[in-house]
């Protein structure tokens, strides 16, 4: 086995590296969105790409989310492999017709003849003091729609490997990046690698409780697991990595093993991701569960601006820890 050399990259660097590698590999891959070129997005995720690949492949658009997302669909059908940039996940509202009535359905409606190999990259996550229209995590909507795939990386390593796979996928893929995670560092191999969609990752093994966490909530769950360890509880933290396809088996097997499960996701808690995953586990591990599956999502309120209010709307290490402890009967 060849030696694998790794370095520490930030989440943003990992995303950029995935894009750069895929753009070098395949000249059909291109990027468009608002302020993606010289500015490299407000989050500076794309810095340097226009310099390497030119303005023909890294294209600044007007503030026309519906329009350029629709163009992504058409471009993908006809030979390009666009990576469309939607700055804040909250603006997905403007792209829903293009993503749901067009991108997701073209392949099926055309009887399998046309394909839409596009990626829509966007963001999620609160606690940036950006208020109700710039803080939502709307991935549940897209996960609800057949024809789309939904990717939610939680580490630089996963981000890079999953984004490369998403770009090579023949289907429309929505790729969610946690805005708060862009500066998070983690090891990323020098060598090329990809990660398949639909394979969960056990971020931490444990025996007493399964915590399924997505995207921004994975670090939170890992933090909670540390706290749990201190009181003698061993938590298994699982990151599905993609909400669709969903690796049900890994989630269910873990819950069967630990007999207790909770699901932590930053989307609104109602009619969202936690309901689906909790149901899958409750059904699949029914005879093994010693307690109901606990769900934690964003509070059912528009995200407030005021820091003390915003902070209580999303799960934290402490609240996850407490819920897990209660679930394990250690009050």
């Amino acid at each position, binding site marked *: 086995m060849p030696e694998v050399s790794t370095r520490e990259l930030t989440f943003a660097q990992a995303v950029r590296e995935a894009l750069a590698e895929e753009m070098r590999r395949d000249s*059909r891959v*291109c990027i468009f969105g608002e302020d993606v070129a010289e500015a490299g997005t407000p989050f500076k995720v794309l810095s340097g790409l226009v310099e390497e690949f030119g303005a*023909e*492949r890294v*294209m600044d*658009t*007007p503030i*026309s989310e*519906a*329009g*350029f*997302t*629709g*163009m*992504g*669909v*058409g*471009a*993908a*059908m*006809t*030979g*390009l492999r*666009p990576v469309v940039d939607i700055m804040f996940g909250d603006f997905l509202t403007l792209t829903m*017709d*293009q993503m749901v*009535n*067009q991108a997701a359905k*073209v*392949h*099926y*409606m*055309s*009887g*399998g*003849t*046309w*394909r839409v*190999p596009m990626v829509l990259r966007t963001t999620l996550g609160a606690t940036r003091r950006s208020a109700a229209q710039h803080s939502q995590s709307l991935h549940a909507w897209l996960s609800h729609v*057949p*024809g789309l*795939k939904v990717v939610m990386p939680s580490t630089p390593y996963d981000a890079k490997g999953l984004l490369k796979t998403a770009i090579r996928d*023949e*289907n429309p893929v929505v790729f969610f990046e946690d805005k708060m995670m862009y500066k998070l560092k983690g090891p990323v191999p020098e060598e090329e690698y990809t990660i398949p969609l639909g394979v969960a990752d056990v971020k931490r093994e444990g025996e007493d409780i399964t915590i399924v966490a997505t995207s921004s909530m994975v670090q939170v769950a890992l933090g909670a697991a540390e706290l749990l360890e201190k009181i003698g509880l061993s938590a298994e933290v699982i990151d599905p990595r993609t909400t669709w396809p969903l690796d049900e088996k890994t989630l269910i097997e873990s819950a069967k093993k630990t007999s207790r499960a909770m699901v932590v996701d930053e989307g609104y808690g109602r009619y969202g991701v936690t309901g689906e995953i909790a149901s899958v586990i409750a059904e699949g591990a029914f005879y093994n569960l010693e307690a109901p599956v606990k769900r934690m999502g964003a509070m059912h309120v528009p995200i407030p601006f005021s820091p003390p209010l915003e902070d209580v709307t999303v799960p934290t290490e402490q609240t996850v820890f407490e819920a897990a402890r209660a679930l394990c009967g250690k009050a």
Partner: protein
Amino acid sequence: MTIATDQSKTKAEVKTEQWIRMYRRMVMIREFEDQVNELYTRALMPGLAHLYVGQEAVAVGICEALQSTDYITSTHRGHGHCVAKGASPDRMFAELLGKEAGYCRGKGGSMHIADPATGNLGANAIVGGSAGIATGAALSSKRLGTGKVAVCFFGEGALGQGVLYEVMNLAALWRLPVIYVCENNLYTEYTHYSETTAGDILARGTAFGVRAEGVDGQDVRAVYATAQRLVERARQGEGPAFLVCETYRYTGHHVGDINREYYRPKQEEQEWKTKRDPIKNFSQWLVEQNFSDEGKLRQIQEEVRAEMKAAVEFAIAAPYPTVDQVDQDVYA
């Protein structure tokens, strides 16, 4: 559609062939739609369909200016566009009946016929829903250097959808080879366009930097001539165009829309049908100019009708998809 020409033919012969081809295509569309209406009346067709009768000159005039590899996007009223772009009636009827032999294996139906072989990116049941797709196809053409042009067909109702202006702006900025063809048939579903459209339609193109022109959509030669110019211009990299065609749908918004007096007078329908019928007027011109005679034209019509009947028979006899196909084609 421009077809490879036989070197031995005279220019006049080639021109004649083209006019006759265009005539045949228009007749095909009308006869196709007659059969659709028949299928509906006989309760053989699932759901509804939106007939293109009356608007034939638009689809045929535009598509005659395109290569078979050029792209089109179409609408809920899309049968005419598909036929004009070269689709086979038998597979179209099969699709309308939800049969496996259909263009979409029965999954799309009347409003979603798509066909890579003829550059048909698909009909769209969302009003204005294909504006982004067509513009994106033009982007591919430009980036990949394929020289293809994309035509986006839509009814004047789509002028209400903001996304149209978003992509027009982008097409103008990036000088994309896309033609936005607005078929103004005067009505959306049951409302006259003047009640839903303020300002000036052509100006809605120029305001976004898109070359705008209007044409009599009942005159297939005029449509063709204008389209040729705009397509050529787009192909040369001179940017997008917006072509507004004045036309009329002869029948209801869909096959079930029988009593229409509450939203438009019978007399208006009568006038368009008698004075501005695109097929009748073109026939007359063909005869006057000695490109054909009435007998030959009638013969074409009969051939086409027979072809359509056979196509319908094929579709009726064709099997439905098997139920296990229901979850195929969700992902590629």
